[in-house]
């Protein structure tokens, strides 16, 4: 039997969302890197296509990963939606910071800044929002509970069915 700490460590290792999102935000600069290194020309269909795809790449990746998790039954739909939205907001904010840095210094400096900001959003959390986060976690657990109950309604029904002996015993106690 694993201890609580071992479980926490194990499940923490399984979470790759931060890494995926960090890499995805870094990939938003792939078009500019390609143009700068000469792989792509400054004008052309391929360049325009790469530019439009790289801009929304993190959001596509987030949608795909969260959608897969929901479809595979790893998490409830509502939780997946919320997680996806939060991840998108964080990635978007990091990309905004990156855009500001790009405007100031250039995109080579913006790449580590964007990736770092995205990683830091998951690492450090605002103390002022602790209450909201706790509330959100309670909701997540409630949704998870409903999700599990919904998955095995027959089993639940069988569990909730009270045998006659118990009812008789309850009557005797009264």
């Amino acid at each position, binding site marked *: 039997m694993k201890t*609580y700490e071992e*479980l*926490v460590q*194990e*499940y*923490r290792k*399984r*979470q790759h969302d931060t890494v995926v999102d960090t890499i995805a935000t870094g990939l938003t600069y792939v078009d500019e890197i390609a143009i700068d290194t000469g792989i792509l020309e400054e004008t052309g269909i391929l360049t325009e296509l790469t530019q439009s795809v790289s801009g929304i790449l993190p959001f596509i990746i987030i949608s795909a990963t969260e959608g897969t998790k929901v479809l595979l*039954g*790893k*998490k409830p739909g509502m939780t997946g939606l919320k997680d996806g939205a939060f991840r998108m907001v964080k990635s978007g904010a990091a990309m905004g910071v990156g855009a500001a840095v790009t405007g100031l210094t250039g995109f080579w400096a913006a790449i580590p800044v964007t990736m770092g900001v995205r990683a830091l959003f998951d690492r450090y*959390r605002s*103390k002022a929002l*602790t209450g909201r*986060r*706790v509330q959100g*976690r*309670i909701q*997540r*657990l409630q949704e*998870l509970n409903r*999700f*599990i109950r919904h*998955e095995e309604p027959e089993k639940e029904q069988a569990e909730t069915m009270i045998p006659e002996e118990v009812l008789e015993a309850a009557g005797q106690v009264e």
Partner: protein
Amino acid sequence: MSERTELTERTKEKPKSLWNGALKMVKGENSAKLIEDFTAEMTLVAEGLCEDQTKLRRDVDRMMTEEDQRIQALQSQAEAMERTLDEERANHDRDLTELRNRLAALEKKAAREPVKEKPKKGNIIRDLTVLIAIAAGAWIIVTLLNKLL
């Protein structure tokens, strides 16, 4: 080697934990941080366990399906074998009945035609002829020998 490494790590961690403990004694625990950490860990563990449970349930379902398929295949094989065995038994019974009938028919035939005993007279005459021939041969040989010598 690994034990030594663990011992070294423990030795390194011990002063750190002592220091952390002492800091906690002085500063006191930050309840907001504790709540944050605990709820985050609990949510993580609950979701992880749910994921594991879902995976295990799927595995069990898959295994049950496979087991059902195997049982069905075995049942069909057993039925086929039983059918073959019945056919073989029926064939064997038919052969046995046929053999019995043929035996009974032969017995009846044998009962109807009694065995004819050969006369013993012929045998005696033949034996006597042989003996006489031997004696005659011996007499001839003796006579010839007497005449020649």
